[in-house]
C-alpha cells in the first residue's frame, strides 16, 4: 500500500477547492468502501480528502419530509425514531448493512456514491423518491436519485462534486415502505437480491382494515391478500426498486404502473412479481444464480409490498415483524 497525503477540510467549499487543486485526489467519508478498494489496489490516490470533519454534513432533519446530510452514518439513521416509523424501508436497509462497527462509520452518501448494484440504501432511497443535492465547483444542482446511478461504480457526479444531502418528500399515514435484503448470512453480507417497496393504500369506506389481525398469524400471504381484496383495498401509489439485478439499482416501473390504482388481490401480486422479474437482468455469480435471483424477485416483491401494507395498518407493531416477510 503506497502512502498518500490526507486532508481534513472543515467546509464543503474548502473540500471542493482542494479537489480542484490536487491531481489524483480521492474523497473519503466513512472509508468502508474506499479503504477496501485501496487495499485491493483498485485505486491508488496520491491524496485523500476526508469529508468527516465537515460539521454541517451529518444532520437528519425531519421538519418537512426528510433531509439527510450525506455524512450521516448508518447508525445515526438506524436510530432515528421518525425514520423508523415513517421511512421504514430506509430503516430496514441501515439496520442490515455490514456490522455495527461498519454502520458506525459508513455514511449514506458513501453508500450511494460508491454506486454498487448491491448498495443497501439505494433501493430504499429510490422508492422514497429521494433527490440528491449536489454541490460542486460550478455551484449546486439537484438530481432525482433514479438519474444519479449510471452503472456499477458510476454516478452522474462530475469532477469535484459532492453530494450534500438527500431530500425526501413527506409521506402520510396511508403510506408504508419496506426493504428486504436477501442474504445467506444475518450480518456482514451483501444481498443476493435487495427489494424495496413503497405503497400508498386506500380502503373503500375509509374505515379501519378489518382483517388487521390476520397479519399477526401465520396465515398465508395469499389468504391475507384475498381478504384485502374483499375489503376493497386499493393501491393509490407504488414504487418498487431492485438491487443486484442490473448494472445499477433500478426501479421496476412497469410493475409500479401495473399496481397503481388497482384493487389489491393475490392474482395482482403474482402478476406484479412476474412483471418485476421481467424488468430485471440478473446474472450468475458466485453470490447467486440468475434463475434463483429471478425467482426471488417474484417472492420478495410480494413480501416487500405486503410488509409495507402491514406497516400502514399496524404502525405500532409492524416495525420489526417476526413473520417470514
Amino acid at each position, binding site marked *: 500500500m503506497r502512502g498518500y497525503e490526507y486532508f481534513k477540510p472543515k467546509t464543503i467549499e474548502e473540500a471542493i477547492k482542494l479537489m480542484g487543486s490536487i491531481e489524483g485526489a480521492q474523497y473519503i467519508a466513512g472509508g468502508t468502501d474506499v479503504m477496501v478498494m485501496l487495499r485491493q489496489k483498485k485505486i491508488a490516490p496520491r491524496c485523500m480528502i476526508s469529508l468527516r470533519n465537515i460539521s454541517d454534513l451529518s444532520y437528519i432533519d425531519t421538519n418537512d419530509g426528510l433531509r439527510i446530510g450525506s455524512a450521516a452514518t448508518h447508525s445515526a439513521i438506524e436510530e432515528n425514531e421518525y425514520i423508523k416509523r415513517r421511512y421504514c424501508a430506509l430503516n430496514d436497509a441501515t439496520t442490515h448493512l455490514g456490522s455495527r462497527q461498519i454502520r458506525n462509520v459508513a455514511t449514506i452518501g458513501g453508500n450511494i456514491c460508491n454506486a454498487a448494484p448491491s448498495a443497501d440504501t439505494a433501493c430504499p432511497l429510490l422508492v422514497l423518491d429521494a433527490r440528491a443535492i449536489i454541490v460542486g465547483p460550478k455551484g449546486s444542482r439537484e438530481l432525482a436519485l433514479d438519474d444519479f446511478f449510471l452503472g456499477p461504480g458510476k454516478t452522474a457526479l462530475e469532477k469535484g462534486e459532492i453530494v450534500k444531502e438527500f431530500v425526501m418528500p413527506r409521506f402520510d399515514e396511508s403510506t408504508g415502505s419496506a426493504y428486504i435484503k*436477501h442474504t*445467506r448470512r444475518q*450480518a*456482514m*453480507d*451483501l444481498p443476493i437480491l435487495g427489494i424495496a417497496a413503497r405503497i400508498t393504500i386506500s380502503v373503500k369506506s375509509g374505515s379501519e382494515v378489518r382483517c388487521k389481525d390476520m397479519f399477526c398469524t401465520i396465515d398465508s400471504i395469499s389468504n391475507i391478500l384475498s381478504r384485502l381484496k374483499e375489503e376493497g383495498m386499493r393501491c393509490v401509489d407504488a414504487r418498487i426498486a431492485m438491487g443486484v439485478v442490473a448494472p445499477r439499482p433500478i426501479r421496476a416501473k412497469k410493475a409500479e404502473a401495473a399496481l397503481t390504482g388497482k384493487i389489491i388481490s393475490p392474482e395482482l401480486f403474482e402478476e406484479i412479481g412476474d412483471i418485476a422479474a421481467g424488468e430485471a437482468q440478473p446474472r450468475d455469480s458466485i453470490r447467486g444464480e440468475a434463475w434463483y435471483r429471478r*425467482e426471488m424477485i*417474484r*417472492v420478495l416483491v410480494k413480501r416487500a409490498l405486503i410488509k409495507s401494507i402491514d406497516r400502514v395498518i399496524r404502525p405500532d407493531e409492524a416495525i420489526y415483524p417476526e413473520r*417470514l416477510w
Partner: protein
Amino acid sequence: MNNLTIVGKKIPKRDAPLKATGSAVYIQDLKIPGMLHGKILYSKYPHARITGLDTSMAEKLPGVRAVVTASDMPANFRIGVMKDNPPLKTGKVLSIRDEIAAVAAISPEIAEEALSLIKVEYEELPGTFDPLEAMKEGAPLIHEEAKSNILKMPWKLVCGDVEAAKKESAFIVEDTFSTPWVTHCCLGTSGCVAQLDAKNNLTLYSNTQIPSLAQNDYIEALNAFGLKGKRVRIVQSVIGGAFGSKLDTYAYEYIAILLALKTRKPVKIVFSREEEFFATSPRQCTITKISHGCDKEGRLTFREMEMVLDNGAYTSWGATTPSVMMLPISSLYKVPNVKYVAKCVYTNNTYSQAMRGYGNPQATFAIESSLDQLAEKAGIDPYELRLKNANEPGEITPQRFKITSCGMKECIDEVVKRLDWKGKKGKGGNRGVGMASLIHVGGGARVYKSDGCGTIIKMDDFGKVDVFTGASDIGQGSETIIAQIVAEVLGIPIDDVNVINNDTDICPWDVGVHASRTTFVAGNAALGAAKKIKAQILEIAAKLLEEEPASLDIKNGVVFSVKNSEKTIPLGKALRKLHYTLGGNMLMAEYFYDPANENFDKEFKGNLSVSYAYGAHGVEVEVDRETGKVKILNYIAAHDVGKAINPMLLEGQIYGGGLMGLGYALGEKMIYEKGYLKNGNFLDYKMPTVKDIPPVQAVIVETDEKDGPFGAKGIGEPGLVPTAPAIANAIYDAVGVRIKDLPITPEKVLAALREKEGQTHK
C-alpha cells in the same frame, strides 16, 4: 472424586484476559531486532510450465536483501507426507498456490513491490480439477513421474462379508453424497520468523501445532542444506486457532529458513488473509457412494462405502484422513459387515490437510443421511433405528475398537427429550426435526509409533509450581485444563500453577495437538507428574512433621496431618527447608504418558484409541418453501465426555464445534473454478457470524472413563461431526427433500422442492 475443588469447575480460560485486551503476542506482533520481511510469489496458473524466470529487477530494488528461487533450494529437497512437494517450484507449477520465488526486504511493502518486479514466463498446460475426471484414462498427469493421478496410498477396510450380508438384508438403500472444500478460517493467519545463530542453529518462531515433529522436519531441512548436526528450537507465539491446519510444515517456513540463511538476518513471513484462504491447506472435497442394509427388525446388517477424495496438487495429511473415516464407517452403531475403499486423487487444486474431525464429518454426513433413508425404507422411526443399533460399553467393533465407556444411548435420549422428538417428528408445517450421532477417538490415537506426551513439574521455594508440558495450547484451553489437573492433585490454588508449553528447548516431547488427544494424553501426563511430585512433597513434610506420608495431605498449599489437624506446614516452608540445608535437594518430577492404544495393522484394524467419544446432535428447522432458506429453531448437542474437567471450556468446544458444523452444513464452500479460488475472502466465503448462531443447548453426559484423567475423554473435534447430517435429516422431515451435496444452500433446497413438486422455475 467427590471432593474435587478445581477439576469439574467452570474456570475461565487463563489466556482470555490477554486476548480480550489485545495484549497476547501473536506471530504478527513479534519483532526481532534486524528482522527482515519475506514475501512469496505464487503461480499465476494452476498448471503450467515455467519457461522463464528473471529476478534481476527485484534484486536491484533498494531495500531488498535477498531473492530466492528453486535454484537456491537443495535440488531434491521435498516436503510433505509423500515427499512430493518442493518448497520452491521449478519446471512445472501444479496449482495457484505454487511458490516460485520469494523476497526478503527491510519492509513488507518493499518485499511486495519486489515481487511485482519478478518476471515469470509460463506455458499454460491443460489442467485437471475434478477428481473423477483426474482418474480417467488420458487425464493430464499432475505428477508425471507418478504415472497416475491416483495416489499410491490405497485405503481398504474389510470386516465380515458385505456381499453375503446384502443377500440377507430385508432393506437396502444406496446413494451418493458429496462434500466441498472448506477451510479452517483461523483468525490468526499463518506465519513464522526464522532466525539462525552464528553456528547455524535454528530458532523458528511459529504457530505450529506439532512442535516436536516440526523440529524433526527442520533438522532434515538443515541437513539437506548441508548443515548437519544443528540444533532446532521451536518457540510458539500465541496461536490464533489451528483446527488441524498447522499439523504439517509448509513451504513458507522453509522459504523463511532459506531467506534467513541467505541474509544472515531473522526473516518473518506472515500470511495476509488472502494468502490464508488460497495458500493454506483445507479440508478436501469428497464424493461418497454408500449402501446400508438392515434386517426386518431394523438391525444393521452391513455398510459399504466407496470414496473419492480430492488430494489436490501435493500430499499432506489430508490424504490420510480415510484412516479416521474408517472409525465411523466401521464402528458408528453396531454394524457387523463393513467394506470401505477410498482413493485420493491428484488435481490442480490446492492441496488438502487435516481439519477438525479428520475426515469424520465427511464420512458421518454420508452415514447418518443414509441411515435416515434406511429408516424410512424400513418403516422405523430414525430415532428407534439409532437406539436399536447404538454402541454399548464392552463392545468390540469390527475394526477391533474396544469400547470402554459409552454414553451414546444417553446422548440420543437427551436429544429426543429436549427436542420433543415425538411431538415434532413428521408434523409438517415446513418444520422438521433430525438427528445424527458420532463416534470419535477420545483417548488419544496411535497414528505414529508413539502417542505420548511428557510433563515436567518443578516446585519453587514459595510453594508454587512450574509445569512444562509438551502439549500446545492452540486456543482450545489445554493450558487451563493442565493447570486445573495439577492444582487439584497438589492441593494448591490454580493461580499457583504456571504452565510453560511453547518452547522445545524446555518442554518435553509431545506428538502434537491432534485427534482430540490433549486433555486425555497431556492431562494424564500432567496427572502422573503431579502425583509423583506430591509423593515427594509428602515424604519431605512427613519428616518435618514427624508423621507418616500416608497420613498427610495438602490443601490450599498447606500440608496437614489427616489425624492431627494441628500439624501443618505450608508448602513453601517445607520446600525451603529442603533447599537450605546441608546436602539439600530440590523438587522436580517428570512423567511420560503414552496410552496403551494400538497402531492399525496392515488391514487397518486395531484399538486405535483407549477410549471413544460419543455424541448425538438434534436439530429443529423451519424451511421457507418460497426461498429455500433454512432456519435453525433449536439445536441440541449432547456429548459423552467422560468427565467435564472444565464445563465452561467444554461448552465452548461444543458451541464452537456446532457452529463450525453449521457453517459446513449450510454455508461454507471454497469455490474453485478451474483451479482458481473465487471466494477467498470472508465476504464470499460464508462462514456464519455471531448473528447466525441458533439457540444451542450443550448437554454434557458423564460416563467416567476409567483411563481418562479424572475420567475425562477428548472433546476437541466431536462438536462438528454430526451437525450437517442432523440438519439434512431435519430438512427432509420438514419438506421432504434430501440434499446430498454440502453446503445446503437455499438454491439447492428450492431447486429440490421444485423438482419434487414437478415444477420448473419460470
